[in-house]
């Protein structure tokens, strides 16, 4: 069962990433890989947000969470593209761009991971509080 969710998430994640990359490269052709940066930063946010907002209370939620995190976000984000683009920039003599890209990817990813964790925590507590008030 888990393979179905992971596989389906992988298909969706890879297609969404492909479409975003195609859109960015056709509408905004820059030498700086802004599309990979945006994808990785958004993925960092979504991963911690979903991991912290969905509780494995039910089996179905466990599978959905696995499909979204390991499948969708795993296929959506890309460390290999980030590495390759950095190496290409270094080989093309764009050293400043390469280090800026490394900094923005790591710092941005960490910041957005924390933002995902923080916002999930806040939303979860808010929903819990609303439930308690309703009872």
């Amino acid at each position, binding site marked *: 069962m*888990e*393979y179905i969710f*992971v*596989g*389906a*998430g*992988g*298909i*969706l*994640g*890879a*297609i969404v990433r*492909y*479409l975003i990359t195609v859109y960015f490269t056709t509408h905004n052709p820059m030498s700086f890989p802004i599309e990979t940066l945006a994808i990785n930063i958004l993925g960092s946010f979504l991963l911690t947000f979903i991991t912290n907002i969905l509780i494995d209370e039910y089996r179905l939620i466990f599978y959905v969470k696995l499909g979204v995190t*390991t*499948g969708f976000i*795993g*296929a959506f984000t890309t*460390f*290999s*593209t980030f*590495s*390759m683009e950095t*190496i290409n920039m270094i080989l093309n003599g764009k050293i400043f761009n390469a280090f800026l890209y490394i900094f923005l990817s790591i710092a941005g990813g960490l910041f957005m991971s924390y933002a995902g964790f923080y916002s999930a925590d806040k939303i979860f507590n808010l929903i819990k509080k609303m439930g308690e008030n309703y009872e």
Partner: protein
Amino acid sequence: MNNIILVGFGGFAGALLRYELSKNIKEKRTIDIPIETFFINIIGAFFFKFIIKSKIQNLF
């Protein structure tokens, strides 16, 4: 449309391979560092550049 089907197929295979590898390494690791993610990222970075650079796609 063909590209989207191929990308989807690759995403399916990649996600399953990553899940399986990650699960196997995680079960065997003895240190408290996510070595499975590290391993997958390093291998992926190597193969991505290797496949692009080797122009293996031109063979088909």
